[in-house]
C-alpha cells in the first residue's frame, strides 16, 4: 500500500512537472495512468476504507483530480472537465470532515458553475449553488459566477461580456469566451422570434460582432436556416401554421358503436 502511494506520488510529481511546462499531451497521458492507479486505493470514494494512510491517499487523489480539472480546462475539453469534476466533487462533499478543505475548492466550484452557465443548464446551476454553504457565496469565484448568472437572466448581456475582463482566476477565461457564444445564441434566438428580418448592421450590433465576417461565419455555422439577401438577414422562421386537425370521424364512430355494443353486454 505504502509502495503504491509512493508510486503514485512519484508519478504525480512527473505529471506536475509536465503540467507546469504546459505540456498538455504528456500530462494527459500521465493523468490517465494516474487515474487507473487511483482505482487501486481502497480509501477513495466510494469505498472509503479506513487505513492509516487514508488521509494521505485522499489528499493525493484530490490533488490529482483538481489538477485534472484544471488540465481539462486548459485543453478546452468540457466533457473531461465534467468527468473529472464529478469525480472530484465527492472529495469536497463526502470527505469534508475527514480531510482539510482545499484551497482550490471554490475556484473549481466556481468554474463548474460557469460551465453550467455556458452550457445553459440553469437548473443544475441553481442546484449546485444551493448545495454550497452560505459562507461560500462571499468567495470571489462563486460571486463572479452568481453575478454573471444574474446578468444573464436579466438580459444584461453587455454586462456579461464585459465581465470577461474581471475574471477572478486565469482558468476562467476559457469559459468566459464560451459564455459569449452562449449569450449570442440567446440573442439570436430572441431575434428570430422578435423580427422577421434585420439589416446586417443591426444584426451585427445586436449580436455584438465586431465585423461582418464574423457575423457571416456565425450565420453559416450556427443558423443555416437564416438567409442573407442584400443587406438584410431574414430569419426563416417556420411560419407554417400547424395544420388544423381533422376530426377522426371514423374512429369516433367505431368507438361509439363499441360503447353501444358493450352496453348491450352489461350483465
Amino acid at each position, binding site marked *: 500500500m505504502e509502495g503504491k502511494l509512493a508510486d503514485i506520488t512519484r508519478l504525480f510529481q512527473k505529471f506536475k512537472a509536465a503540467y507546469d511546462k504546459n505540456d498538455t499531451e504528456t500530462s494527459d497521458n500521465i493523468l490517465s495512468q494516474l487515474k487507473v492507479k487511483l482505482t487501486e486505493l481502497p480509501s477513495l470514494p*466510494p469505498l472509503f476504507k479506513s487505513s492509516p494512510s487514508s488521509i494521505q491517499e485522499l489528499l493525493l487523489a484530490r490533488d490529482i483530480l483538481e489538477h485534472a480539472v484544471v488540465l481539462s480546462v486548459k485543453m478546452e475539453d468540457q466533457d473531461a472537465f465534467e468527468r473529472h469534476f464529478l469525480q472530484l466533487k465527492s472529495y469536497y462533499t463526502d470527505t469534508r470532515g*475527514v480531510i482539510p478543505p482545499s484551497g482550490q475548492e471554490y475556484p473549481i466550484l466556481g468554474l463548474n458553475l460557469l460551465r453550467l452557465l455556458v452550457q445553459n443548464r440553469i437548473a443544475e446551476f441553481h442546484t449546485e449553488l444551493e448545495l454550497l454553504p452560505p459562507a461560500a457565496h462571499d468567495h470571489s469565484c462563486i460571486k463572479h459566477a452568481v453575478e454573471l448568472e444574474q446578468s444573464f437572466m436579466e438580459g444584461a448581456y453587455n454586462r456579461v461580456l464585459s465581465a470577461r475582463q474581471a475574471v477572478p482566476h486565469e482558468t476562467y477565461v476559457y469559459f468566459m469566451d464560451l459564455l459569449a457564444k452562449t449569450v449570442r445564441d440567446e440573442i439570436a434566438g430572441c431575434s428570430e422570434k422578435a423580427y422577421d428580418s434585420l439589416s446586417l448592421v443591426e444584426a451585427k450590433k445586436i449580436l455584438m460582432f465586431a465585423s461582418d465576417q464574423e457575423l457571416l461565419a456565425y450565420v453559416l455555422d450556427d443558423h443555416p436556416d437564416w438567409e442573407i439577401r442584400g443587406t438584410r438577414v431574414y430569419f426563416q422562421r417556420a411560419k407554417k401554421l400547424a395544420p388544423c386537425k381533422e376530426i377522426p370521424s371514423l374512429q369516433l364512430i367505431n368507438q361509439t358503436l363499441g360503447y353501444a355494443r358493450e352496453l348491450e353486454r352489461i350483465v
Partner: protein
Amino acid sequence: MAVVASASGLLAMLQEQHPTLKLHALRNLNVLVDNFWPEISTNISAIESLYEDETFHERQMAALVASKVFYYLGELNDSLTYALGAGSLFDVTEDTEYVQTLVAKCVNEYISLSVKLAESNDSETTEMDPRLVAIVERMLDKCMQEGKFQQAVGISLECRRLDKLEEAINRSENAASMLSYCLRLSQTFVSRREFRHEVLRLLVKGYQNFPQPDYLSICQCLMFLDEPGKVADILDKLLKGDKNEALLAYQVAFDLFENEYQKFLLNVRDLLPEPSSAASTTGILATNGRLNQGSRNENGISALTDAGPTAMDSDLTEPLLARHDEEVATDAAAAAASPAAQAESRTPYAERLAKLKGILSGETPISLTLQFLYSHNRSDLLILKTIKQSVEMRNSVCHSATIYSNALMHAGTTVDTFLRENLDWLKRATNWAKFSATAGLGVIHRGHHQQGRSLMAPYLPQNGGTGGGSPYSEGGALYALGLIHANHGEGIKQFLLESLRNTSNEVIQHGACLGLGLAALGTADEEIYEDVKNVLYTDSAVAGEAAGIAMGLLMVGTASEKAAEMLAYAHDTQHEKIIRGLALGIALVVYGREEEADTLIEQMTRDQDPILRYGGMYALAMAYRGTANNSAIRRLLHFAVSDVSDDVRRTAVLALGFVLCSEPEQTPRIVSLLSESYNAHVRYGAAMAVGISCAGSGSSEAISLLEPLTSDAVDFVRQGALIAMAMVLLQTTEAREPRVASFRRLLEKIINDKHEETMSKMGAILAQGILDAGGRNVAIMLQSRTGHDRVTAVVGMAVFSQFWYWYPLIYFISLSFAPTAFIGLNEELRMPKFDFISDTKPSLFGYPPSVVPPAATSAVKLPTAVLSTSNRAKVRGAKKESENKSGKAPVQEGGATASSTNAEGSGDGDKESTSTMKDKNAMDIEGGVEKKAVVEPSSEVLSNPARVVPAQEKYIKFKEDSRYAPLKLKRAPSGFVMLRDMTPSEPVELVSTDTPVSAGGASAAAAATAAAAPMAVDDNEPPPPEPFEYVP
C-alpha cells in the same frame, strides 16, 4: 467515516477511456445501485452500451448493473433480459429482494414458455433460452439443497420438468409425503390431462420404490390412469399376503369404490382371478337369487289378490300396502340362505377374493350404506306434514314438489312412511306427477339392490304389456329402478332393456331410457345404446328427450364417435325437447375430457341453435368439471355476458359452478358481479353456480351472496336461490352458521304464504327436501375425499340442473348425495362395536333439532263461547275419526299377517328389539341436546357406525386403548375404514342388530312409526325425554 452522497462521480468514470476505469466504476456501481438507482437510471444508456460493446471484457458486470437498475424501475422484462446476460454474476442464492423477484420472474417466464412449448405443435416450437433454463435449474438445485422440496416439486410440476420432479421426490427425506403432496397438486393444479397422466405414472413409479409401497395412493393413481390390470395385480398380491395386507386390499377397494368409477371397478373385478371355489359361492348366490325370485313372484300374486280389496283402487296406493308382506318374505328367504353360505367352508384366499369382489362390484359398500342410512335416519316427518298442510291441494306443482321433497328427505333410507300415511293425498298425482311420484320410490330405496325390483314390481309393466296400470306409473317405476341401481345396474340392465323393447308407449319409453341410462351409467354398452338410439329415431318428443340423456349417461366420459352422431340428429330433428336431451347427452359424453373436447365444444358453441349452444355450455362444464381451468372459465364468462339467448347465458353461469367445484371458495367471488346482473336468468345461474360448487360447505361468502337473491323480485330467481342455499347449508348446524335458522324460518314462511308465487314456493319445498336430505345423513359431494371427481355425483348434478325444463329430473340430485358416515369394518367386513371420540362440542355437528309442533296457536285465541251441543258433536267426530284410524291399522296389519305368518314370527323378536333400541338411542341423543343448554361437553363419544360430517373429520380421534384401530391413520376418518383388531383372540362383538333386517326392519319400523306418529301429533306435544344419566 464518510459515505458517498452521489453516484455521479462513478457515472462520470464510465465515460473514461480506460477499460480499467470503467470496470472500476461498474463494480462500485453494482455495490451502490441499491441506493443510487435513480441517479444511475439517467445514465442507463451508458451502461447498456457497455454491455453491448463486444470488446468490453466485463460486459456481464454491466448487464448486472443494468438489470438491477431496471428492476428498481419496475421493468422486470428488461431486468430479466440483462440478468440473463449477466450469466454467472447473477447469483440465485443471494438473499435479496432483487434476486428473489427476478428468480420468480424467471421461473414464471420459464413456465409459460415450457407450457407453450408443450402445447404448441412441434412445427413452430420456440427456442428456449438456455440461460433461462440454467437459472431455473440452479434455482431448483438450490431449493433441494435447502430442503424446500415442496417448492421444488411445485416448480418442476409447473415447468413440466418430470426429470426434476423425480429428482426432487427422490432426494427428499420424506418421499411419501412428497408424493402425496405431488398427487394433490397434480389433481388440483395440473390442468392438462396428458401431462397429468405423465405425472401420475411417475408417481406410481415413485410409490413402488418404497420398501412398503403405499398401495392406497398407487391404486388411486392407477385409477386416474385407467389401468385396471395393475390395480388387479396389486389387489391380488395383497390378498395373498397376511391379514393386514388383506385389510389393506379391502381398504383400497373401498377407496376406489368411493370414486364411483364404475367401469374401472368392473374391469378390476373382472381382471381378478376367479376363486377356485367360485362355483360354490356363485351357486349359493344363484340359489339365493332364485329363492328371492320365487318368493317375489309368489308374493306378487298374493299381493294382487290380498291387497286388492283393502286398498283404494288406485294403482299407486295399492302396491304400497301390499309390499310389507313381500319384504318380510324375501327376508326370510335370504335369512334362510345365508347360514348356508356361512357354513360353506372356503379357503381364506377365495373367501377374501369373494369379499373383495363384493366391494368392487359395490354390493358390500352399498348395502352397508343403506344400513347406515336406514338405522341413522333422523328425518323429521313434521316438516313434511307442515308442507303438506300448507300447500294447496289443487296446485299440482307444489303437490309434486312435496313428493319430490319427501323423496329427497328420505333418499336412500328406505323409509316411505310419509307416502304410506298419505295415500289419499298421494292419489292426486296424475299423469306426469304420477310418473315422478312412482320414481320417487326409487330415490327412497336407492341402493336397495336385492329387493329393488320386487319393491317396484307392482308398478312395473307386466309381461302382457297390458298390466292395467297407467303408463305413467309404469314409466316412473322403470325410472325408479334406474335410480335404485344407479351406477350399479348390472343386475337390472337386462330387465330394463326388455321393458324398453316391449313397449311403444312414449311415457314408458321415457322412464325406461332414463332408467337404463342410470343403471348402465358410463358402461358404453353397445347393445343398450343401439336400442336407445332406436327410440330416439322414432322422433317422439317425450321419449326422444330421455333417449338423448340416456345416450349421454351411457357414454359418460368416453368421448366416443357417438357424440357426432348425436349432434347430427340434433340438427335433423324438429323437436326442441329432443335437441335439448341430445345436447345434454353430448355434454355428458365429453365428461372429463378437458382439452380433447374442445373441438366439439367449439362446434356446439358456434351453432345457430341456442339449444345446442346451451348444450355447449354443459359440455364445457362437464369436460372441465372441477378443474378450475382458466380458459374454460374465461369462455363461460364470455358466453354469460355476450350470448343473445337467455338460456345460454343462464347455463353458462351455472356451468361455472361445475368448473369451480374443486375450489368452492373461488365461486362466490367470480359470480358475485353476475349475481347483480339485470338479467334474471344470469342471476338464477349465479345462484345455482354457487349452490353447486359450494354445496355443503356452509361457506359464509356463498350465503351472503345468496341471501339477497332469496328475496329477488323474480320468482324463478328466488327458486334457484332457495335451492342453492339449501345445497350450501346442507348439514350445517346453527352452531356453525346461525343463518341456518333464519333460512329455515324463511322457507317455512314462503311455504305458508298464500300469496307467494308458485315457482318460489316450489323452490322452498325442494329446498326443504335438500336441506334435510337422506335423513340428514348425506351431503352433496361432487368430489371424493381424495379429490377425484365423483362421476355419478357430477353427472347427477348436471342432469338435476335440467329440472328447469323437466321436473322429474329433480331426482338426479340423489346421485350426488354421499353418506357422511364413519363405517368401521373388520376383516369379515362386518361392523364391530367400537367407540371413538369427536373432540368438539356435539352441537357443532349435530342434527338440527326436530321441529316443535305449533302448540301455542290455540292458546292465543280468545275463548269463544262453545255450545255444549257443538262440543259434543266435536267429541263424536273425533271419536269417529280415531275409530277410523284404528280400524285402518288392523286392516294393514291383518293383511300383513295373513300372507306371511311364518315370516312374521321369525322376524318379530328382532324387529321389536331394533325399534326399542332405536327409540332409546333417539331419546339419549335428545336428552343430551337438552342437557347441553346447561353445560355443553367439549367432546362426545361416537360408536361405529356413526355420522361424521366432512367438517367434523378433523376432530375425530381414536382412543388409545381401543381394541380396534384404523388401518391407515393418515386417511380421513370417514367413509369405509378398515379396522385392525388389536386383540384378535377375544370374541368379536358386532353391531349386529341392524345387520340382518335391513329391509324387513325398515318396513316394520316404518309401520311402527306410522302407527305412533299420528298419535303424537294429535297430542300436540312431543314425548318427554326419558331419564338418563349424563356420561361425559
